[in-house]
Each structure stands twice: as C-alpha cells, then as structure tokens.
C-alpha cells in the first residue's frame, strides 16, 4: 500500500506542537505571550542604546479572550521586515552570533499563531523607526504556506520610536497574572536599567525598576568559534567560498583562527591547506568537521559578544527587589561549551524571610531572561544541591537567595519552552566553582557576625521567632509582612543594651 507523505509548513508544525513552545494551556499561553513580546522589546531597546521603558497591558475581554499589548521605546522594526517578523515562522534578526534574549524569532510568531487560531484575530503592530512616520499593521499568518497576510497597513505617527504589539488570545488572565508579575519582577533583576509598567484591566498594577541608569555593555557581533561549527555550517561556508583556499575560508569565517592555527589544524585533519573550496570532497569536508571538534589548539572563544549583568548592576537590582542585607557577586568565564562562549555570574544574598529552608532559594536566568518553570531539571539546581550549605552557616540562620545568570551565544535549553538549562558539563563545572566561592563569602560574613557580640545560634533562634511574629502579625492585620532585618541586626550588633536577660 502506498503511504501518503505530506509535508507540513513550520507554522503548522509549531501549532501542532504548541505545548513545546509554552502554549500548552490557557494560563501558560498568556504568560508565554507576555514573555515573548517583552523579550523582543528589551532586545530592541538594547539595540537602540536607550533606557528601556516597557508597558505591558493585559485586558480581560469576553469569553476567556485576553488582549496582550506590549509597548517599548526600542529601535522599531524596519517596515520592510514587519510582516515577516510576525507572520512567518523561523524568520528573525537573531541568527547572528551574539547574546540575545530571543533565539530564533520563533516565540512572538508562535504567540501570533496561537492568537489567530484561538480568537481569529489579527495581530496589531504599530512601529516607528525614526522620530515620525510610524506604520500600523494588522497581520495574519497563512498557516499552510507559512507566509504573512497583511490585512491593513497605514501610516500612523507614534509618540517616539519603538513598537507596540497587541495580540488577542484565548487565555486565563486571572491565573496567569501572578506568574507574569513575578516574571517581570525577575526580569528587572537582570535588566536593572529597564522600567516596566504592568497594567491589568487598565489599572496600573505594578511599576518595576529602574534600579540603575547604567547601560549594559552592548554585545559585539562576532564570528563563530570553530568548535561551534557543525557539518551543515561548514558545508554552507565552503559552498559560499568556492574559489578560496580552505585555509583562508577557515581564517575568514572563524574567530581564534589565524594562519598559524589554520595550518596546524589542517595538518591535524591531514588536508592540503591550499586546496580550494570546490575541490573538497564530501569525505574531506566531514574529516575537517571532525577535526574542528578534536583539535585542541584553539584559543578560548572571545567573550565580547556576551553581555553579563555586571557586578554593580546585579548587586543593585537584587538589593532593590529583595529585602537583603548581605550580598556578594561572583563571575566565571568566559569559557566555552562546544565552541559557544559563556559567562556564569551570580549573586548570593541573605536577609529577611519567614519561609526558611536549609537550601537557598534559587533564581535562574539565561541571557537576561528569568526562568520560572521546570527548576528541578536545571543544571543550576543540580549544582545548588551538590553544595553542603550547612557548612556555610546557612541552616536556620537567614534566608539565603542565589541568583545565577548564564550568558552565552547559545543557551542549551532542555526544551523549546525555554525554561530549564541542560546539564552541560562545562557550565556545571563553572557554576559549581562560582557558587562555592560565593558560599564561602557568606560563611565568612556569618562567622564574623557570630564573633561580634552574641553567639550565632542565639541570634538565629531569636531571628526565627521574631520573623514568625512579623509573619503572623501581618496575617492577623491582613497587611504585608513588615521588614524585621534591621530590628534584629540592631539588637545583636549594638552590644551592650542588655536585652538578653
């Protein structure tokens, strides 16, 4: 019997597998739509060199329909690319090698697609690249052919450059809103120069940031590291440079490869360095590809394409968002995993909390995006659990928070939902060294505190009870839990007010 083979378009494929992209249920759909749009907005602002100001507007419409609007003051989208950016899967500006929040220009289109299928609404895009002359569009996706359909396109001035996108989707706003608020709050931890306004049903619900005016370093576009090249990439590079020698192809296409290194590599691959592109056989190309992986003569990848948060900004944002007293910052890298440069940086903080646990609370970030789901499978969670925190006076003392941020040209996500980082040995090793170092700092500070005045144990017990007073007092008064850290540390640092009787 003859089987019927059908090819499906990427749009159709992603709709069928929407759970992989984070659109599996009504709550997640709202959350993921906000997330994708906010990430695009922040990337656009970073490119513009302006301090980002993002407005997120969520409105409950009839029949579980939610409209999600995200406005930014970024670069705007070049008008010739608008329709494809939102109306075609796997189209985007993010294929170059530098750190970006989004990866393949997939997410926002996924949201558009999901919205279109659940509500039959077009996406509304209003963008402006200069000081005037913006454009407003209504777009749909031709799912079968993966091409955009422009319903309308009109010139419309916007108050300054930037982009406003409105997507109507079927979703559950009530259940998603806490998650979204948490997501935005965490976003400002790693993007502390951004200001984010959240409005729910036209009521201003939260204003977050800006914690610092300091702009992050702009990541520089760089050539890929040779170890990051797979066979497909290599074939493409050779096809594009048919007339050049294999040596110059290597030198021109990759970083950390000069004439000298290229010569050594080709000797390692047993290839004639003068051979030109077109004359390479299939077998030779795959030998070269294998040699790129096995050759150990490359220098580490260049980290200038990365943009970590940085010591000052990271410490400032953590202190702005969490009631913490002790805070320390550490950073490892740049290192590489399979040729992709990465930096792991982290802040370890301790302070007031009523929900004490023996293990620190972990907050994970990748390329300035907070990861809120699937923590248990994450490489950072594994590292956190490897450390014996009781050695560093964590137990029962103060609540300890760990913030870890991975910057890389490529984040090894476990799944398309982009919520947890795979167990890559190189990343794991650097993260472990980083957290151990931070934990030692914490231990030192806790011991110093203990030497001064009264025993740590007494203080821990006191603090524990006192935080319960604040917690249950607040639950009685139906108010927020008042901060207790200052009172407690004041009592134990002021040495001779004789309160311990």
């Amino acid at each position: 019997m003859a089987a019927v083979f059908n090819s499906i378009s990427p749009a159709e494929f992603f709709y069928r597998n929407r759970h992989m992209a984070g659109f599996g249920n009504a709550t997640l759909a709202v959350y993921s739509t906000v997330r994708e749009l906010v990430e695009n907005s922040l990337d656009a602002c970073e490119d513009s060199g302006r301090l980002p100001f993002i407005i997120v507007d969520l409105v409950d419409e009839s029949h579980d329909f939610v409209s999600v609007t995200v406005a930014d003051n970024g670069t705007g989208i070049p008008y010739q690319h608008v329709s494809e950016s939102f109306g075609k899967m796997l189209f985007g500006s993010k294929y170059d090698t530098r750190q970006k929040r989004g990866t393949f220009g997939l997410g926002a289109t996924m949201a558009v697609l999901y919205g279109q299928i659940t509500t039959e609404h077009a996406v509304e895009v209003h963008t402006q690249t200069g000081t005037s002359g913006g454009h407003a569009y209504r777009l749909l996706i031709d799912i079968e052919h993966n091409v955009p359909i422009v319903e309308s396109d009109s010139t419309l001035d916007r108050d300054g450059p930037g982009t406003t996108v409105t997507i109507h989707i079927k979703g559950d706003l009530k259940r998603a809103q806490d998650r979204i608020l948490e997501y935005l709050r965490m976003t400002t931890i790693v993007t502390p120069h951004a200001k984010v306004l959240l409005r729910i049903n036209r009521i201003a619900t939260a204003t977050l940031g800006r914690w610092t005016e300091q702009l992050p370093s702009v990541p520089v576009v760089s050539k890929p590291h040779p170890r990051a090249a797979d066979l497909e990439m290599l074939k493409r590079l050779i096809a594009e440079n048919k007339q050049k020698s294999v040596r110059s192809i290597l030198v021109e296409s990759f970083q950390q490869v000069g004439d000298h290194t290229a010569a050594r590599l080709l000797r390692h691959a047993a290839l004639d360095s003068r051979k030109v592109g077109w004359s390479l056989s299939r077998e030779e190309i795959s030998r070269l590809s294998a040699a790129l992986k096995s050759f150990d003569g490359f220098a580490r990848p260049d980290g200038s394409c990365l943009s970590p948060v940085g010591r000052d900004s990271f410490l400032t944002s953590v202190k702005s968002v969490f009631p913490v007293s002790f805070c320390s910052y550490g950073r490892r890298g740049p290192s590489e995993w399979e040729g992709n440069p990465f930096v792991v940086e982290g802040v370890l903080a301790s302070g007031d909390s009523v929900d004490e646990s023996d293990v620190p609370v972990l907050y994970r970030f990748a390329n300035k995006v907070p990861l809120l789901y699937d923590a248990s499978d994450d490489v950072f969670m594994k590292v956190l659990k490897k450390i014996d925190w009781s050695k560093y006076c964590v137990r029962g003392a103060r609540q300890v928070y760990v913030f870890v941020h991975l910057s890389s040209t490529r984040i090894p996500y476990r799944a398309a939902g982009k919520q947890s980082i795979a167990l890559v040995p190189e990343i794991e090793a650097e993260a472990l060294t980083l957290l151990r170092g931070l934990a030692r700092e914490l231990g030192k500070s806790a011991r110093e505190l203990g030497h001064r005045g009264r025993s740590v144990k007494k203080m821990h017990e006191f603090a524990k009870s006192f935080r319960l007073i604040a917690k249950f007092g607040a639950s009685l008064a139906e108010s927020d839990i008042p901060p207790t850290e200052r009172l407690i540390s004041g009592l134990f640092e002021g040495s001779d007010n004789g309160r311990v009787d």
Partner: protein
Amino acid sequence: MVESTNTRDILVQLGKKVVQSILNEEFPRLEIPDRSTDNIVFDPEQGQFVLGTTRVMRDSSKIRHVKSFAQLVWVASFAKDLLDASRTSSLRDLYYSSEAFGVKFVDQAESDRIVADLESLSGMAREDFGVFPEEHSSVYGQVTMRYTVPGYLGREVDLTVSPDGLPIGPALMTAEPVKSNAEIVLAVECGGMFARLIETRAWERFKAVLIHLGGQPPRSTRRLMRLLHDRLDLPVYIFTDGDPWGMHIAQVIITGSANAAHIRGLTIPDARWIGVTPEDIVEYSLPCDSMNDADIKRLDELALDSRYTGPEWQQHISGFKDLRRKAEQQAFSRYGMDYVVDTYLADKLA
C-alpha cells in the same frame, strides 16, 4: 454567632499593633493580665474568681520572651483563620497544627497555656474563636435549640432526639433555646447515672434537662448550663459522687475555677449541689469506701479555699472529715435500679 465580628476585630487589632510597632522599628510588647495564683482573687460580688490588677509584660526584644510571643501571635492568627473559615478546632488539634506553621511547642500543656494567654489578653474565651477541648459531655431534655452555626443556621434540634443524649459541642454551645417544657437543669457526674435517668424517664418526672458532666465539665458544658439557666430561668442542681472531688465539680460550676479566672460568663452562683453529701451517706446508709490520703489532703485544702468559706460548705467538709468515708452516685443501686429516682432525687428535688 453574633460576637464573631467583634472577636475578629480584637484579633485584627492585635495584629495591627504588632505590625505597626515593627514598622516603627520598635519591638512589639504586650501587657497580659497575670494569671499566677498571686493575682487571682475571689470576687464575692460576682461570686467567682477574677484576676487582680497585676499585669505581665511580654517583650519581643527579650530572648526569654520572643518564643512565647511568637507562639501567642500564631495562636491568634490560627484563631482568626478558624473564624474566617467558620471552622472549629480542639486544643489538641491546635497543638498539632502548630508544626505546619513552623511554630514549636514543647508539649500540649505549653500550647494550652498560650491559648490561655490569648484569652486573658483579649478578654475572650477560646470558645469564642473556635477552640474547644477534646472531650464532650452530653445533654438530654425537653428543650428545643436553634443552631446559629453556618450550615445549620436556623435548624432546630430537640434535645431528646437521641436516647443516648446529645454531645455538647461548639454548635450546641452557641445555639439558642427556642422552646422548653423543662423546669430545672440536673447535672450528674457520671455516664451511668445519666443513662439511668434517661431510661427511667426521670427527665419527664422532674421536668429536667439532664447534663452529663463526666468529671470536671468542659467549659462549653458550663456555658450551655449557664445559658439554660439565664434564658429559660431554670434552677441548676448538681448531683455528683460523695467525695471532695465530686463536691469540687459542683463548686467550680457555681463559682468558677482558678484556671479560668480570666473568663467571665461561666459561673452559676445560685446553682445548688444536692449531693451526695456526707449526711446522705449516713441517712441513706450508702455502701462506701474509706477515704485515702489524697482525699483527706484535698479536704484540708478545700477547707482553706476562699470559695468554701460559707457555713454550708464548711459543714460538708467537716462532715466528710468526721466520716472519713466516701460514696459514689451508683451506691444507691444497692436498693434497686429505680431507688435513686423514686426516693433520693424525689426527696432532693421536692
């Protein structure tokens, strides 16, 4: 429950006071009426024990106080949660619940003490915020009560509905009497006697609401007795074993206990102990046991207790001391099953 909004207010105010103080960067402090025996005085006017004027300061900045301070605030928040959810709990349940909130008590005695702290601080009985003791006593009689608890609001129950008597729980304690054929309340110490009085239809004969005390009765039982006494104007008679312990059960119902000196609205000053008195033991020639050392010691204590200063009480005490014997309620059974109803109670309640 009419007073529930009020009770809730008091708890919320307590929380606000604590939170405000922390926000002002001051350690919260609470003044709690002192419940130690030095501060308990018998108020002849009210006919019950009351707390004196001494207060103790609980200061959360003191290492010695901070733990019990936290426990107290937790009990208050637990109480408020109970009120908000219209639920009830028991002292034991409260003790076990504490662990889920990260609050630790050494034993239930400690958590009971903290509950009493909250009572004296707030001036409310724990029953007001839904915390009841584990044990139940029972009631039986010709009274119809109307529930006020959610779920049963407005439903009525005839207290003769079960031949075993009806357990006195939170719901019955807060119910309102609506109809009654009864003329007296008769409280008896042990379950055997309670069952006997139901079976022999003594409740019909004496037009009595029967209460099974089961030793020292829970406060909810005392509440219900007081309610029946106040609302239906029923005189209260107490029938216990003939020993210092039984006598004291009656005394607590009449004038209150030192443990609950901070609580009002439990005592029934004009309730009467009908026996078994020392005279009854002699008059009815009841089979009896010799008193042991503990019994004698208890009599000595009671002789000095300010609640027993009345001549009638002193007479009972010296009667027991002279007799050095004690008799249980069931002792009347030597004269046959119905003797206690036909003869003894008929005499006493005539």
